[in-house]
C-alpha cells in the first residue's frame, strides 16, 4: 500500500512528509550544536583567560591565533554556495534542468573549496603544534569546526548523489525530484547557518 503524502502536501498541515521530516531533523541539529555552544559558553565563563596560554605564549584575542582572513573567505564561500543551492532548486521549479546541473555543480565545487580552505587552516595549526590537547580554546575550536566540517562533507555527498545518480528521477517524477532538492537545500542552508554563528563566536570574540 502507498504511504500517503510522500509527494503531495497533506491538506490540513499544508506540507508533505519529507518536509516535516527534514525540519524535525534540523530541530535536533539545532540542539546538537546548541549543546556544543552551551559547552563553549560554560567553559568560556569559567576560564580566567581566553584563548589563554598556547605554546607558552599568552593570547588575549582569538583573532591573534586563528586566521580571520581565511575564515572570512570561507564565510563568503559558504554563503555563495547557499545561493547556488537555492538557485538550483529555483531552476528546477522553472523546469530548467540544464541550469540545475550548473548550479548544483557550483554548490558542490564551493563545498569542496570550503573544505580545502579548512584543511589549509588546520594544517597551519598543526604545523605550529597547536593541537586540541593544547588548551580548551583550541579544543573547542577543533571540535566545533570539525563537527561542522563533517556536516559539510555529508552535505556534499548528498548533493553529489542528486547531481548524478539521483538526478534520474527528474525524468520519471520531476515534482518529487524538485521536492528532494528543496529538502537537500534546507540541510545545506542549515550548515551555512551554523557557520554564520561559529565564525564570530570562535574567530572574533
Amino acid at each position, binding site marked *: *500500500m*502507498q*504511504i*500517503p*503524502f510522500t509527494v503531495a502536501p*497533506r491538506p490540513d*498541515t499544508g506540507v*508533505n*512528509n519529507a518536509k*516535516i*521530516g527534514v525540519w*524535525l*531533523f534540523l*530541530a*535536533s*541539529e*539545532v*540542539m*546538537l*550544536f*546548541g*549543546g*556544543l555552544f*552551551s*559547552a563553549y559558553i*560554560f*567553559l568560556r565563563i*569559567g*576560564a580566567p583567560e581566553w584563548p*589563554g596560554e598556547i605554546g607558552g605564549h599568552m593570547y588575549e584575542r582569538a583573532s591573534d591565533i586563528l586566521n580571520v582572513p581565511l575564515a572570512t573567505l570561507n564565510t563568503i564561500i559558504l554563503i555563495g554556495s547557499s545561493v547556488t543551492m537555492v538557485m538550483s532548486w529555483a531552476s528546477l521549479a522553472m523546469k530548467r534542468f540544464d541550469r540545475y546541473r550548473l548550479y548544483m555543480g557550483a554548490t558542490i565545487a564551493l563545498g569542496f573549496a570550503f573544505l580545502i580552505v579548512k584543511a589549509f587552516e588546520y594544517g597551519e595549526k598543526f604545523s605550529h603544534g597547536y*593541537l*586540541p*590537547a*593544547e*588548551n*580548551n580554546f583550541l*579544543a*573547542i575550536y*577543533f*571540535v566545533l569546526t570539525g*563537527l561542522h566540517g563533517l556536516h559539510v562533507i555529508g552535505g556534499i555527498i548528498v548533493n553529489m548523489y542528486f547531481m548524478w545518480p539521483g538526478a534520474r528521477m527528474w525524468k520519471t517524477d520531476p515534482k518529487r525530484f524538485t521536492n528532494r532538492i528543496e529538502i537537500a537545500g534546507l540541510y545545506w542552508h542549515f550548515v551555512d547557518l551554523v557557520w554564520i554563528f561559529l565564525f564570530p563566536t570562535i574567530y572574533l570574540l
Partner: protein
Amino acid sequence: MADHAAVPEGHHGEDVHHTSFWRKYIFSTDHKVIGIQYGITALLFLLFGFSLVMLMRWQLAYPGEPVPLIGWLFTDDTMPGGIMLPEFYNQLGAMHGTIMVFLGIVPLAVGAFGNYIVPLQIGAPDMAFPKLNMASYWAFFVGGVIMLGSFFVPAGAAKAGWTSYAPLSVIESMGQTMWLLGMVFLITSSLLGAVNFLTTIVQLRAEGMTFMRMPFFVWAQFITSFLLLLAFPPLEAAAFLQLSDRLLDTSFFMPSGLVVSGEVVDVAGGGSPLLWQHLFWFLAHPEVYVLVLPAMGIVAEIIANNSRKPLRGYKAMVYSLIFLGFMSFIVWAHHMFITGMGQAMSVFFQTTTMIISIPSVIILTALFLSLWGGSIRFTTPMLFALGFLPMFGIGGLTGLPLGLAPTDIPLHDTYYVIGHFHYVVAPGTILALMAGIYYWFPKMTGRTMNDTLGKIHFWGTIVSMNFIFFPMLIQGMAGVSRRLYDGGEIYAHAQDVIVYNEVMSIASWVLFVFQIPFIVNLLISLKKGKAATDNHWDATTIEWSAAPSPPVGHGNFHDLPQVYRDPYEYSHPDHDEDYWPQNAPPAEASED
C-alpha cells in the same frame, strides 16, 4: 549445457526464497515486523540487565563470598574463585543501568509498542519513513552489540556508572570508549525513530482522526518523541566531547591539577566536570519521562478498555502531558543540588521541580478516577495496569523530597534515590509494559496468553518488587550510600539496616523465578494459545476495530479507516453495545 543451466536455476530459486525471508523478517520495512524485532531484542536485554543485577545482589547480601552454582563460569579478572572483584561490581552496576534504560525500556516502550501500535491506532498503512524505521532498529542493534562487546575488551566494560560522570569516566579504561560509541549509535537510533514518529503522527492520521480524537497512548508517544528529538542531541554533543577528552587528550571535563593515585594527571586542564553533569542531565531528566510516558499511555488504554468507561478528563490529561513535556527541559539541575550551585539557581530548579509534579499528579488522578463507577474486568493486563497506579504513586511521592534541596542533600547518592527511581521505572513502567504485552499479544499474534499463568506472574512480580525496593528507601534514609561494594558492611551507621540486604537480594531472585511463568506463557501461547477474535477485548480504538488480528501484511488495513468519534466511547447511552468503535459509521447506531 543442461548441466550449466540447471545449476543457476536451482540457485536462483533458492535465492528468491532467501531474499524474501531476509526482507520479510530481518531487513523488513514493515512497522509491525520492526516493532516485534525491537520487542524481542529489548526483552532479551531486559533479561540480561536483570541478570547483571542479580549477580550484584549476591555480592551485596554476602560480600566476599563466592557466588554459588555459576561462580566458576567467570574469568579470573572478574570473579576469581567465584568472588566478585570490585572492578567487576562497578562494571555490572554501570552496565545494568545503561542496558535497562537505553537498551531495555526505551526500545520496548517506544521502539516496540510505539512502532507496532501507533500507526494502527491512527489508521496509517505504515510509518512515514519505513526505511528510516529499519535503519533506526539496526542502529539500535549495533549500539547494543557494542555495549555487550565492551565486556570483552581489556579491563572490561564501563565502570563509571550509567551517568558516566567525569573526570572518573575520562580516566577509565577502554570500556568507557565503547560505552560512548555505543551511546552514539543508540542516540542516532532514537533520533531517527523520533523523526519518524512525529512525522507519522502529524501526517498520516486517518480521515477524521483529529488530534483530540487520538488515543492517549498516541499522545504519550508523540510527546515522548519530542523529548527524544530535542533532549538527546546535547548528550550526543557531550559524548563527542568525552570521546575527544579520552582520545585526543583534550580537557573539556578535566579540571586543572587533577590528582589521580597521587599523581597530577598530565592534561592541559581548565575544563569542568560539572559541564558533563549539565549536558548529561539535560538529556537524562527528559529521558526519565521517556521512560514513563509510554507506560502511562499503555495504562490509560487498558484502564479505559477494562473499566468500560471513557477516560475521565482525557483533555486535562493531554494538556498535562504537553505541559510536562515542556517543563521536563528545565528541571535537570535537581540532580545536582550538591554541586554547590548558587541560591538563585537552586530556588529556580526546586520551583520547577515542584511544578512539574503537578501534571504527573493530574494524570495519575485522572486514571484513578476513571475507575470510579466502572464495571471493571479484572483481566491480566488490567491487573498489571492497576498495579502501575500505586507503584508510580510511591515513586512520584518519594521524588518530592528529592526535589527540594534541604531534604535532597542528605538523601542524595543514597539508596533512597535508587528506591525512588526504581519505584517509578520497575514496578511502575515495567508493570505497564507487561500489561501492554498481555493486552496487545492477541493483536500481534491472533492468539491469547494464558490467564492463570498471567496472574501468577502478576502477583509474584508486584510482591517481590516491593520487597526489593521498599527496603531501599529505609536504607537510604539511614544514610547508606548507593555506591558501596559491600552493601555497607563496614559502616557503623548502616548496621541497623544492613539486614535488609539479604531480604532484597532474595526478593530479586524470587522476582526472577516469577518471570519464568511469563516466559513460558509467551513462548507457548505463540503456537498454542487460544485463538483470539479480531477485537479481542471489545475495544473502541481502531487498531482493534478496523484491522484484523494480526493485521494484514504490509499496509495494515484492507481500506484505510474513517474515524467518527472520540477514542473511548465505552457504555455510550446512544449505543446498544457497551463499546462504540471510533470507525463505526454513525448510521449503524440509528438503524438498530
